[in-house]
């Protein structure tokens, strides 16, 4: 008896050891270069100036001070606006991709993903060429068509930052929605039609509610990435004062590392909250 138990034990032990060896390097790497720094970062945000004590002062300041609250709010508002625009643009594209593109769907997906494959520098210069004071768009509107008296000021306004973010983030929205749309049984829509619902009514009553999960997943994804976006905002300007930009500023100009740490923790908490929401969405889908 005893030997049998010992045997199974040792066999389990051997299997566990082999498993540990396999995931070991990845775990070690993540712990050393991701978890520990994050932990260190979080600890720094709680440390008093002399590095000895524990304080919540920075979080109190972040969450009560008008200025800092404004920064957090601006971050969330910008991300929300970008998310809403992505959903508005992304849904029709996803619908077209799934329902109408047919054999062209590969090409549509490539065109969608193309912006993600180009470097941020190239994209930024692209926007310059298009939207500069004497850029393509203004040339067209003022000189060629004569629709406007004066060139539009787009570069260095919030608009260009939003356009830039939407441009890179819309594929995430489209692909999230397309995946769900793909899975909707067309006969559900046909059932609604037979029962007297026109095209628009069918869309509103059946297609849209059934693809809500796709919109949800896409929205969370876009919102999270927009929340943390930095390079696009730095390069395109637009005068936004968001958390990532402010963290950068704290590090480089103000050199208040602890405040930067606190802000990045706030950003992290928002991201975790989003992940939690997404997890719940996925679980609901799995359950039904």
């Amino acid at each position, binding site marked *: 008896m005893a030997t049998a138990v010992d045997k199974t034990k040792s066999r389990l032990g051997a299997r566990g050891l082999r498993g540990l060896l396999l995931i070991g390097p990845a775990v070690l790497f993540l712990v050393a270069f991701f978890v520990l720094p994050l932990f260190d970062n979080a600890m720094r945000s709680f440390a008093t100036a002399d590095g000895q004590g524990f304080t919540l002062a920075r979080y109190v300041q972040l969450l009560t001070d008008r200025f800092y609250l404004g920064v957090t709010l601006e971050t969330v508002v910008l991300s929300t606006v970008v998310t809403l625009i992505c959903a508005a643009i992304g849904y029709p594209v996803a619908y077209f991709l799934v329902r109408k593109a047919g054999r062209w769907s590969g090409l549509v997906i490539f065109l969608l993903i193309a912006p993600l494959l180009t470097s941020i520098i190239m994209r930024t210069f692209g926007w310059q060429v298009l939207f500069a004071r004497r850029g393509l768009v203004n040339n067209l509107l003022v000189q060629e068509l004569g629709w406007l008296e004066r060139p539009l000021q787009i570069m260095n306004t919030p608009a260009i930052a939003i356009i830039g973010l939407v441009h890179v983030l819309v594929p995430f929205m489209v692909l999230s929605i397309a995946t769900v749309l793909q899975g909707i*049984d067309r006969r559900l829509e*046909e059932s*609604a*039609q*037979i029962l*007297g*619902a026109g095209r628009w*009514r*069918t869309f509103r009553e*059946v297609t849209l509610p059934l693809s809500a999960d796709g919109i949800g997943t896409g929205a969370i994804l876009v919102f999270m990435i927009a929340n943390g976006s930095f390079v696009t905002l730095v390069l395109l300007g637009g005068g936004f004062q968001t958390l990532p930009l402010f963290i950068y500023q704290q590090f480089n100009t103000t050199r208040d590392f602890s405040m930067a740490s606190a802000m990045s923790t706030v950003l992290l908490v928002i991201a975790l909250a989003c992940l939690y929401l997404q997890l719940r969405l996925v679980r609901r889908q799995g359950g039904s």
Partner: protein
Amino acid sequence: MAAELRLADIHKSYGPVQAVDELDLTVGEGELLALLGPSGCGKTTTLRMVAGFEEPDRGTIRIGGDDVTYQPPHKRNLGMVFQNYSLFPHRTVAENIAFGLRMSGASRAEQQTQVARMLDMIRLPGREDMYPNQLSGGQQQRVALARSLVVNPRVLLLDEPLGALDRSLRESMQFEIREMQQRLGITTLLVTHDQEEALSMSDQVAVMNAGRILQIGAPSTIYDRPASRFVAEFLGTSNILTGKADADGRKLAAGAYSFALPEPQPAGAPVVLSIRPERMVLGDEAERCPSRLRGRITGAVFRGSYAAYQVRVEGMENEIFVYRQADGPLGAITYRVGEEHWLGWNADDGILVDPE
């Protein structure tokens, strides 16, 4: 609200494929017609044209005399039940059933009474607030039926409605749907590839193949008097004997054999004879049959209410199937594989069919 459904000269092709070819079909008021055929025969395309999801290239579809050929589906006032039920997963049973009423602008109170009435009819009272995925397959199917009937449709379309159910449930649902259809007197078009379903549920069966209707008739006629070889073989098992009529046209000459024909044929004409396995006689009684063969039993299968035998006859291409009603205790197999026996049939049980 029942209405006659009439399809005239319907053509539909997808590229080079002729899906439906010169189809004429009438389903009388309150009648149930089954479109029966193998997959890809055009039966589903036909149903989808009646529903309005596809447009025919040519021809007209009339419901109760109105030309609806190019009318969009939501204006046709039809009911439809799909194979996978297609209940709205995000809506409760009550909301599913009330959907059609809501689309036509019925009041909330009216919706409620109708839903309760339908749930009583399908014997699922009190399930208003459940979601489709909380119901069994058979219950979902009944809810789908209720959802399509609550709007008093002019025509009910059933697309392989029992295909997803298991065998025992399928049989009781056949009775249930048929009973409801007759009680409500609703014109119904049923599409199925299951011959048993077609035979047991309908007033008329239309057998389709390759986009064409081969034969329309009452189930018993289609089964007992198949017009063509395809119909004979698609509906149940048939023993097919091919050959030519002999000099006086009274017998079929097939290789070394010769069988009496049910009616005289022109001399030398190619003849195809179909005999149902249950019309075949095996053993000593067969010696008295005018048409008989000697063969060796190569297979014997117990099938509950009857026994099925496979008999190999010297010089014949295909084995002959014979079904024998249970005569011993519960269809015990009375003949053994390897034994040699006579098998035969009466001239009237041989049916002349079109070679196609």
